[in-house]
């Protein structure tokens, strides 16, 4: 393709990417460097159905003038990034100086909203992603060896968790694990502890969310692997069978290497998705025991007085986090690509 033709060919996509990806990110970065105007406060008398009181109010006119003079708000530099809601540099330094031992320091760190959210987000990402890959692959192998007549219905049933909207899926499970729900009550009977609550303990909440994440995403890995399995070269497998390779050896030495590009693809998608975990936390009402970076952004924006700067700073850090997570996988893909093109 000529360079000129190529340019016109990709121009629409490029424009869309600039408009819908690059510009919003730039605007979020700018937003994260600003905080709201100083509010001009006045004391006034409030009266209503329950009597009169003297209360502080915002002088809307005076504040509006400040806003007009500088529509973006006050420039705060990296102030929002280092405050207590985010990296909390001074709180971390203080905790480091005053703690005896690493355990106490980690405890103090987990008391800060950003680090607590980061801890859950990373645990979720690194526990759910490999389990999704393994489970998805196992289901794919299982379904692939089924007789033809059973394949269709099995595939449909296996895909159901992915078809259910995450919020609805998590709500259904939330009701089931309630102390009076079928799973919760069943578990209490099984363990013989009538006070066991999957929602009350932090460890059990985390495990519940991990199980939900695997349940919800495994079908995606399964369907991709299953498609890949249809392309495994039959002559190689047959040759291996003639050589006396076991089923396990065939899977390990032929199928898996063949599916490697797909594994990389699923890993990329899952790392990105899991790092942005959000819906199950809302669906399971788990915010007392588990929060994520995306949940913090939502929480900042769900208030009446919205914290746009704070939400923007967390968003920028989430984007950086995704970039860092994906770098090793991308480097590996790039090396493979270069090796093949030589």
């Amino acid at each position: 393709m000529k360079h000129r033709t190529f340019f016109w060919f990709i121009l629409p996509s490029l424009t869309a990417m600039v408009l819908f990806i690059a510009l919003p990110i730039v605007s979020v970065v700018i937003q994260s460097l600003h905080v709201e105007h100083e509010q001009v406060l006045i004391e006034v008398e409030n009266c209503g159905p329950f009597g009169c009181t003297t209360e502080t109010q915002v002088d809307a006119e005076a504040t509006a003038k400040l806003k007009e003079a500088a529509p973006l708000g006050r420039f705060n530099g990296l102030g929002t990034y280092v405050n207590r809601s985010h990296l909390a540099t001074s709180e971390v330094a203080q905790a480091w100086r005053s703690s005896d031992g690493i355990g106490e320091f980690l405890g103090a760190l987990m008391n800060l909203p950003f680090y607590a959210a980061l801890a859950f987000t990373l645990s979720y990402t690194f526990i759910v992603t490999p389990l999704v890959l393994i489970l998805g692959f196992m289901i794919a192998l299982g379904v692939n060896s089924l007789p033809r007549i059973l394949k269709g219905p099995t595939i449909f049933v296996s895909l159901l968790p992915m078809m259910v909207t995450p919020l609805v899926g998590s709500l259904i499970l939330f009701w089931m694990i309630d102390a009076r729900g079928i799973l919760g009550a069943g578990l209490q009977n099984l363990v013989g502890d009538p006070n066991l609550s999957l929602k009350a303990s932090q460890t059990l909440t985390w495990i519940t969310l991990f199980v939900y994440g695997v349940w919800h995403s495994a079908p995606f890995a399964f369907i991709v692997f299953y498609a890949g399995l249809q392309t495994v070269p039959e002559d190689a497998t047959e040759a291996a069978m003639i050589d006396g390779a076991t089923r396990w050896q065939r899977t390990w030495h032929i199928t898996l290497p063949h599916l490697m590009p797909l594994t990389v693809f699923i890993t990329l998608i899952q790392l990105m998705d899991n790092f942005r975990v959000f819906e199950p936390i809302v669906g399971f009402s788990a915010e007392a025991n588990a929060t994520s970076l995306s949940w913090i952004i939502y929480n900042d924006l769900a208030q009446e007085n919205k914290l746009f700067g704070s939400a923007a700073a967390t968003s920028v850090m989430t984007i950086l986090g995704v970039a860092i997570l994906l770098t090793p996988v991308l480097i590996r893909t790039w090396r493979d690509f270069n090796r093949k093109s030589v």
Partner: protein
Amino acid sequence: MTIRTLAIAGAFALTGGAAMADCGISGGNISILANDFPALHAVVNAAETCAGEAASFNKNHNKDHKDLMVAALTPNPAEYSSVIVANSSLVTLMNDGLVRPLDDLVAKHGQQLNKSQLITIDGKVMAVAFMANAQHLYARSDILEQVGKPVPTTYEEVLETAQAIRDAGIMEYPFALNTKAGWNLGEEFVNMYMGTGADFFKPGTAEVAINNENGVKTLEMLKALVEFSNPDFLTYDSNATQAEWEAGNLALATLWGSRGAAILDAEGSTDEITSNTVLAAAPTWGGGTRPASTLWWDGLTISTNVSDEDAEATFIALMKGASTETVKANNDAAVWLIDGYEPGPASAGVAATAQAGAAPYPMVPFMGALHTALGDELADFLQGKESAEQALADVEAAYTTAAKEQGFLQ
């Protein structure tokens, strides 16, 4: 919209038009944004019958109306000519100057209003309240009889009674309140702290003042209460506590007054439970005299960024909406502040709470930031993971960070 719903809507418009009362509206656009519960539906629907063919009418009942309202009222002309607000959301709109003073409209069209309905701020009427709400005690008289206790009037008695019910082997977890982490949990702290009579902020400043003995006592009372709640208490919101109550799993609970009608009706529960449910004032505690609850009102506002004609038309229609006729037709849907309201069993709790001297939810512009900080930071304490002092220090730090970003603190 399908052809069928269009036809139905058209039919309604026609029949409605025929029955339209003459409210004196000559034209203009009326557009109302409101929360989504039966009492507000009654008010807005009544306003709609008054709008008639003279004015265009549009309404949006939305549970998330608070998230939409600022963006919807900021442009000129505004998306809505009126937002139905509560104590807390009025402050948000006033911070940005998005609602207009109503003095002239009240003088011209508000003859039927009681003085207590007028929300005046700095001498100007900024909203007209029409209903009240508060959290208060619900009790099961049959279970209290079994343990030989009266309906508690203090939270200390609530603890005693709950212990007696547990000891008698009737229920392991006889008590509940809305302690879902987030807004609900924050509201429970605010309610309980109100019982101490102390201020939330240092007078005249945006500096928070709860990190002290009153705050610690408040947290300890909440902790003592949730010991009698199901271990899942950090996921309990109004819907969950109402369901628990209707299922007969509770003997005592602190719930919203607006849940009263739904709990006392024949739906979702047994006759044994509904007939023995008593609605009482919010308890006091710690030797205080003020009920540990906050009073809330819901009322109407008119946008700044609409024409005077639209503003007037909207006000007239809503005066019709929040009128004695609406109250007569929907007496039990709310605790109305309007003439003609006859308190029924569902409103007994709110009325008793107000009469006992509960204070309104603080209408200061930085209360929202404190409420959020409380909701986010108190769960660790209630789960026994940290001390009350640590929890209050966390709340103070979280509030200060947010208030600085919003420009309330330097």
